[in-house]
């Protein structure tokens, strides 16, 4: 079981991810609706893993990954985005994300990614 911070600007997607992660035995310890809030909550909550959307207001997911990695280089972050083009995936991985799940996704895909990144 892992402590998870869920980052997505859509309340619907946060609710859906929370249900999937809870079904998989994980605990969602916090939620953030944009990249700035995500970096702040990461510092407060120190989760085991983060699910990160890309297209968000204030600060996008790639910027948030850079912000979190500057605080904690060992942070484990899985991108969950509809922007699945190759250069976006490369940017996310270069920023420090460990895996990339393309929306729309199902519970099995999300839990498999979390398990892989937790090792």
């Amino acid at each position, binding site marked *: 079981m892992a402590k998870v911070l869920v980052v997505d600007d859509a309340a619907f997607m946060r609710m859906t991810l929370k249900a999937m992660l809870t079904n998989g035995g994980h605990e969602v310890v916090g939620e953030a609706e944009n990249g700035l809030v995500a970096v702040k909550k990461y510092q407060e909550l120190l989760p085991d893993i983060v699910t990160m959307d890309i*297209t968000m207001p204030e600060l996008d997911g790639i910027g948030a990954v850079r912000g979190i990695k500057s605080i904690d280089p060992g942070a484990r972050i899985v991108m969950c985005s509809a922007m699945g083009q190759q250069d976006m995936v490369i940017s996310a991985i270069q920023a420090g994300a460990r895996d990339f799940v393309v*929306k729309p996704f199902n519970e099995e895909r999300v839990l498999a990614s979390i398990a892989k990144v937790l090792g």
Partner: protein
Amino acid sequence: MNEVITAILNSAIEGSASVFPFPLTTQKPSLVKTSFPMNATAVLIGVTGDLRGRFLLVAEDSVFASVAESMYGMTLSGEMLNSFVGEIGNIVAGTMATKLSLRKFRVDITPPTVLSGSTTISGFKSAIQVPVDAGERGQLTLLLIFEE
């Protein structure tokens, strides 16, 4: 220019077809000049990068609710349905961006804005609307607004 419009159109149609978990029948696209009146719910996404414009997905609330049920097994209403409408717009536009990248166009998208009720979308010179039939679920419309 026609090649660019065809690439956008095909990417939008392919994106929709790969996101929705039920068969879609795409109707004939038509040109929209200067304004688009609607009385429904819509999600608007800005497109930036190699191609610039706006993407809208328009449908009745009941159609969006039916899409949510088929994709996630959830019955949604009110604020959570509005949030889903924004998210499905983000997913379709994001998938369209991915399809465009395979055609060598690099684009990014903005966070969604959800519009409800009777309104008129204006402030553009030309756009293309594509009605998409989702069987018993009803109809959705893709509106692609091009900037010069």
